[in-house]
C-alpha cells in the first residue's frame, strides 16, 4: 500500500497535554510503533490521535502478537457463511436458517469489579451477535477462579455469577451451559468468558462495513460517560480535584437498555434501514467507527461535540475512548435517518447523527469545528506492526510432564470417588446455573447440568447443541495435546446429545506473550486446536484473545476455551446425559488404558498436578462422534455421558445422580473386565480420552454393538441401571473386588460441594 507521507492537519484540543515521550509510554506504545505513527502522519500526533492509536494498536484490537498464529486455524467449510473478522461467525443451518456465535473474555474488569465486570461481559457478547442481525437464543459462560477456601475467591465467584445471571436474565436469553474450574493459578486473576449464540435467516445477515460516501453515522443507546477510559490520559497529571473527577470509571451494565437496543437493532435491520451497524465494545467509538470504515475501505468524519454525553465537559479524547456500555454505531443513508429515529423512539431510545462516510480515506475527528484527529484510516486499523515473540518451553514444564506422584493416596479407591465428587471443579454447578434463567424463550430441550445444552430452532424440528470446554490442567502440562483435548471434549459433549459438531469459536486466555514459555503455550495450544478442528471438520469461525493474564504468582494456567456448536437434526431424538430407566443396559464406548497422567485423581487424591495428559486420537474421536449421532438418529440411546475429569467412575456416578432436580438418584450394577490388569484406581479414575458411557434398552444392545463395530469404535457392555436410590456397584472381574456407594450420599456430596463452601459467608449484596 502506498505510504501517505503527509496527511491532513490536526490541532491539539484546547488544554490538551502535549505529546511527549513520557505520554507515549503511558499509552503503552513502543518507540518503534511511535516512529511508524509519526512517519504515517508526517507530524507529531495530537493527544486524541495518540489515544486512538494506543487503543487500535493495543493487543486487544490489533492482535499484534497473535495474528500469524491465528492465521493457521482452519476457517473454511461448506457450512461457513461468515468466518473470522466480523462481530461473530456464522454457520449455515437447514431451511435458510443460520447461527451466529462468538465467545469473548471480560477477565480484567471482572477482577476489579466482579459483578459489573461479568455483567458487561455478557452485554458485550450479546451485542456482537445481534449486530449481525441474529436474535440471541442462548448464552454460555466459562469461569476460572482460585480455590474457594480463599474468601476473596468466594467474593469474586458469587459476584461474577450474579453479574452473569442478572444481565442475561433481564435481557431474556437463556443460559444453556458453561463450565467452572478452580485452580490456584487463577487467584487474583479470574477468567470470565461469555459466549452468545443467535439465530437469523441467512438472507438477513448484516455485516459491519461502512460504505456509501455521504452516508450518516449515528450513535444509538446510552449517553457516553467517562467509563473505562484508558488510564493513561490522567496517569501523570498531578492529582487535583479536577483530575480526580476525570478518573476512569467502572463500566456499569444496564441490561434493560440492552434489551431495548436488541429489539430496536433487529427491527432496524429487518426493515432494511441501515447500511451497517456495530456495537461499541472495547475503545468504544474509536474501534467501532475505524473498523467499519476500514472494512468498507472508506473514510469517516466524526464530530464528537454532537455525541450525547452523561457528563459536561468531556474532551474528544474521552468521548473517542469511552467504554460506556449499551451503545451502537449505525451507518445509514441520509434519507433513512428519520425512520431510524422513529424506530428508536418507539423503543424509548435515541439515535443521534454524529458523523458521515467520506471519500478521502481519512479517520477524522472534529470537535466544535476544530479537527483534532486526521489519520489514514486503513493504516490506522491494519498498520500496527506485528511482533513475533520467541516461543520456548520452560524446562520446568518438561520435567513436570515427566513426573509422577511421590506421596501415597489420601484415601482408598472407593473413598476417592467421594473426594472427587466433592471437588468444586467436578461437583455439580447447580449453585451456579440455577441463578441463570435457562428456560426463557421456551425452546430449551436440554438445559444446564448435562454434557451440552440443546435448544430447538423456533418453528422447526431441528436444534442446536452447544458446549464450552477446556481442561486447563491438560493445556498446562502439554499445550498441544491440551489444545486438541479442549476441542475434542467440546465436540464429544455436543455429540453425546446426538448432534453433529459444526464449528467453534475460541477464547484464548494466556499470560504475557513476551515470556517465551507463555508464547510457547499459546502457539502449541493453537496448533492443537487447529489440528483437532481439521480432523473434525469444525472450522474456527472467530474468537477472542486475552493475554497478559498474570496474577501476583505469575501467569494463569493457559486456558483456550472452546465454544462448540452442533446441529441436532431432530430434537425429539436428543439424548440426555443421565440414566433414564431402570434395567437399561450400560455400555462403555472407547478404549480404557488407565491413563492417570494429568488426571483429577492425581490432583485431588495425591495432591499432585503433573504427568503427561491423555493423548487424543483425533480419528478415534471423530469416529466416536459419528457413532453417537448415528445411534441417536436411530433412537437407540437412552443416555450418553462422556468421561472427563475423574474418568469412568465419576461419569458413572454422574449418570446415576441424575438431572439437577431428579426426585431421586438411580443405581447401577457395573461389571468391569480388566484384561490389561490395570491398577484399580487407574481403571476407575484414568482419564483416557474418547470414552462415553451410554445406556440403551437391553433389546437394542446388539444393534448398538453392530453400529459401533461399523464405525470402528470399541464398545463393551459393562452393566445395567438399577432402580431409584439403589447403590452404585462396580465389580472388578479380576481380583473379584466389589466397590459399593450409596447413591443418595453421592448425590448429596455432588450437589452440596459448592453450596457448602459458599455458605461460609453470605458476602456483600451485589446488584439491585
Amino acid at each position, binding site marked *: 500500500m502506498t505510504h501517505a507521507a503527509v496527511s491532513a492537519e490536526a490541532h491539539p484540543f484546547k488544554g490538551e497535554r502535549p505529546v511527549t515521550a513520557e505520554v507515549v509510554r503511558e499509552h503503552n506504545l513502543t518507540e518503534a510503533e511511535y516512529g511508524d505513527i509519526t512517519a504515517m502522519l508526517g507530524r507529531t500526533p495530537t493527544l486524541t490521535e495518540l489515544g486512538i492509536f494506543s487503543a487500535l494498536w493495543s493487543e486487544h484490537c490489533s492482535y499484534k502478537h497473535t495474528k500469524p498464529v491465528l492465521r493457521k486455524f482452519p476457517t473454511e467449510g461448506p457450512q461457513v457463511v461468515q468466518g473470522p473478522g466480523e462481530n461473530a461467525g456464522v454457520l449455515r443451518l437447514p431451511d435458510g436458517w443460520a447461527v451466529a456465535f462468538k465467545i469473548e473474555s471480560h477477565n480484567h474488569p471482572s477482577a476489579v469489579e466482579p459483578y459489573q465486570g461479568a455483567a458487561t461481559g455478557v452485554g458485550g457478547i450479546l451485542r456482537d451477535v445481534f449486530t449481525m442481525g441474529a436474535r440471541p437464543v442462548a448464552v454460555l459462560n466459562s469461569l476460572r477462579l482460585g480455590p474457594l477456601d480463599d474468601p476473596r475467591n468466594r467474593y469474586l465467584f458469587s459476584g461474577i455469577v*450474579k453479574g452473569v*445471571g*442478572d444481565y442475561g*436474565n*433481564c*435481557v*431474556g436469553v437463556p443460559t444453556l451451559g458453561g463450565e467452572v474450574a478452580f485452580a490456584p493459578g487463577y487467584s487474583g486473576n479470574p477468567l470470565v468468558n461469555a459466549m452468545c449464540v443467535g439465530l437469523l435467516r441467512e438472507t438477513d445477515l448484516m455485516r459491519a462495513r461502512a460504505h456509501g460516501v455521504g452516508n450518516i453515522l449515528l450513535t444509538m443507546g446510552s449517553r457516553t460517560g467517562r467509563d473505562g477510559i484508558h488510564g493513561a490520559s490522567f496517569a501523570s497529571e498531578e492529582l487535583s480535584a479536577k483530575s480526580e473527577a476525570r478518573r476512569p470509571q467502572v463500566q456499569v451494565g*444496564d*441490561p*434493560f*437498555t440492552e*434489551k*431495548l437496543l436488541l429489539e430496536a437493532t433487529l427491527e432496524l435491520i429487518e426493515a432494511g434501514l441501515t447500511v451497517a451497524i456495530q456495537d461499541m465494545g472495547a475503545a468504544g467509538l474509536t474501534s467501532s467507527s475505524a473498523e467499519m470504515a476500514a472494512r468498507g475501505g472508506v473514510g469517516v468524519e466524526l464530530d464528537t461535540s454532537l455525541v450525547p454525553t452523561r457528563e459536561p465537559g468531556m474532551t474528544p479524547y474521552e468521548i473517542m475512548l469511552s467504554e460506556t456500555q449499551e451503545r451502537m454505531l449505525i451507518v445509514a443513508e441520509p434519507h433513512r435517518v428519520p425512520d431510524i429515529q422513529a424506530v428508536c423512539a418507539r*423503543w*424509548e431510545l435515541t439515535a443521534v447523527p454524529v458523523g458521515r462516510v467520506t471519500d478521502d480515506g481519512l479517520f477524522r475527528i472534529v470537535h466544535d469545528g476544530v479537527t483534532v484527529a486526521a489519520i489514514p484510516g486503513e493504516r490506522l486499523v491494519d498498520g500496527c506492526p506485528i511482533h513475533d515473540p520467541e516461543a520456548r518451553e520452560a524446562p520446568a514444564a518438561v520435567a513436570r510432564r515427566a513426573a509422577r506422584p511421590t506421596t501415597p493416596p489420601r484415601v482408598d479407591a472407593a473413598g476417592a470417588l467421594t473426594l472427587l465428587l466433592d471437588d468444586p471443579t467436578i461437583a455439580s454447578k447447580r449453585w451456579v*446455573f*440455577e*441463578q*441463570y*434463567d*435457562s*428456560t*426463557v*424463550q*421456551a*425452546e*430449551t*430441550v436440554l438445559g444446564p447440568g448435562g454434557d451440552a445444552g440443546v435448544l*430447538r430452532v*423456533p418453528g422447526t424440528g431441528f436444534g442446536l447443541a452447544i458446549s464450552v470446554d477446556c481442561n486447563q490442567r491438560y493445556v498446562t502440562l502439554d499445550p498441544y495435546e491440551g489444545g486438541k483435548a479442549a476441542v475434542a471434549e467440546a465436540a464429544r459433549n455436543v455429540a453425546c446429545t446426538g448432534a453433529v459438531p459444526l464449528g467453534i469459536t475460541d477464547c484464548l486466555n494466556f499470560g504475557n506473550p513476551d515470556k517465551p514459555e507463555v508464547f510457547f503455550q499459546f502457539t502449541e495450544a493453537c496448533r492443537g486446536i487447529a489440528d483437532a478442528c481439521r480432523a473434525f471438520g469444525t472450522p474456527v469461525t472467530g474468537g477472542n484473545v486475552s493475554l497478559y493474564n498474570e496474577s501476583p504468582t505469575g501467569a494463569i494456567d493457559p486456558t483456550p476455551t472452546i465454544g462448540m456448536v452442533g446441529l441436532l437434526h431432530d*430434537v*425429539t431424538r436428543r439424548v440426555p446425559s443421565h440414566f433414564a430407566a431402570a434395567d437399561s443396559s450400560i455400555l462403555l464406548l472407547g478404549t480404557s488404558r488407565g491413563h492417570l497422567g494429568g488426571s483429577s485423581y492425581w490432583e485431588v487424591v495425591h495432591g499432585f498436578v503433573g504427568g503427561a495428559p491423555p493423548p487424543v486420537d483425533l480419528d478415534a474421536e471423530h469416529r466416536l462422534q459419528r457413532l453417537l449421532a448415528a445411534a441417536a438418529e436411530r433412537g437407540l440411546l437412552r443416555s450418553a455421558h462422556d468421561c472427563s475429569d475423574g474418568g469412568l467412575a465419576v461419569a458413572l456416578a454422574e449418570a446415576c445422580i441424575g438431572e*439437577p*432436580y*431428579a*426426585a*431421586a438418584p438411580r443405581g447401577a450394577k457395573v461389571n468391569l473386565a480388566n484384561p490389561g490388569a490395570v491398577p484399580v484406581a487407574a481403571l476407575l479414575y484414568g482419564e483416557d480420552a474418547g470414552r462415553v458411557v451410554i445406556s440403551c434398552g437391553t433389546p437394542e444392545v446388539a444393534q448398538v454393538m453392530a453400529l459401533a463395530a461399523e464405525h470402528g469404535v470399541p464398545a463393551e457392555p459393562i452393566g445395567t441401571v438399577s432402580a*431409584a*436410590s439403589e447403590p452404585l456397584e462396580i465389580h472388578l472381574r479380576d481380583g473379584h473386588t466389589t466397590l459399593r456407594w450409596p447413591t443418595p450420599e453421592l*448425590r*448429596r456430596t455432588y*450437589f452440596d460441594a459448592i453450596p457448602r463452601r459458599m455458605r461460609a459467608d*453470605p458476602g456483600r*449484596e451485589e446488584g*439491585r
Partner: protein
Amino acid sequence: MRVAVVRFPGSNCEPETCRAVERAGGDAFYIWHRDTSLSDADAVILPGGFSYGDYLRSGAIARFSPVMEAIRSHAKAGGPVLGICNGFQILCEAGLLPGALVRNAGLKYLSRPVDVRIERTDTPFTSAYRAGQIIRIPIGHGDGRFVAPASLLDQLEAEGRVVLRYAGAPESDVPSNPNGSVQDIAAICSASGTVVGMMPHPERLADRVLGSDAGQGVFESLMRYPVTPVPDPSPRFS
C-alpha cells in the same frame, strides 16, 4: 378467543406466551404498553420478563403504563386477566391483586422446575386441571416471595383464593417452596376468580417436544372459558 399479550419495555416472555395461546387454539396478539385499547381482546395476559429492568421494584414502574387503565376496566367487567411472573408482580403493584412479591428468601434469583398443586379449578386458567393435581413447571425469578398482612392472608385462604401452592417430591434434595412465599403460595386470584397471578411459567413447559406440556393446561383452560365480549370504554387507536 382473542388474547392480548401486553408488551412492556423489558418484557421478554411474549413470544412463547403467544405460542402457547395459539397451540391451545387461541388468537394471540401483542398490545404495546402505550396503547390505550385492548382491541376487543377477550382475555389479557401480562407476560414475564423485566419490565423497566425491574428497577426500583419489580412491576413498580410498569403499573403506570397507559395500557393499565384498559386492563383495569377489562378486569372490572369480569374479563379474564393472567399475570405470569413479572405480570403477577405488575398486577400486585397495580392493586389488581392483593399482597406483594418481594426478594426470594434465599436472596438469589432462582431458575428451576417446581412442583405446584392445583388448589382451584374454577378459574379461567386452571379448569383443565384436576383439583389437587401436582404439575411440574419452571420458575425464573428473584422477587417471588409472596407476602401479605395476616388479615389479608386469612381472607385469601377463607375465600379460597390461593390458586397454586408449591408442593414437593419428598425425596427431592431441594426445598419445595423455592422462595419463602407465605403458606407456599405460588398463585392467587381476585375475589371474582377472573384475575389470576402466578410466579411459575406455564408457557415454558407447554410443548411435549420440550419434555412436558404440563403448563399447557393453563391456556387450554382459557379456551374453555365462556367469554362475553367486554365493552371497551376507551377510545381506539389504529
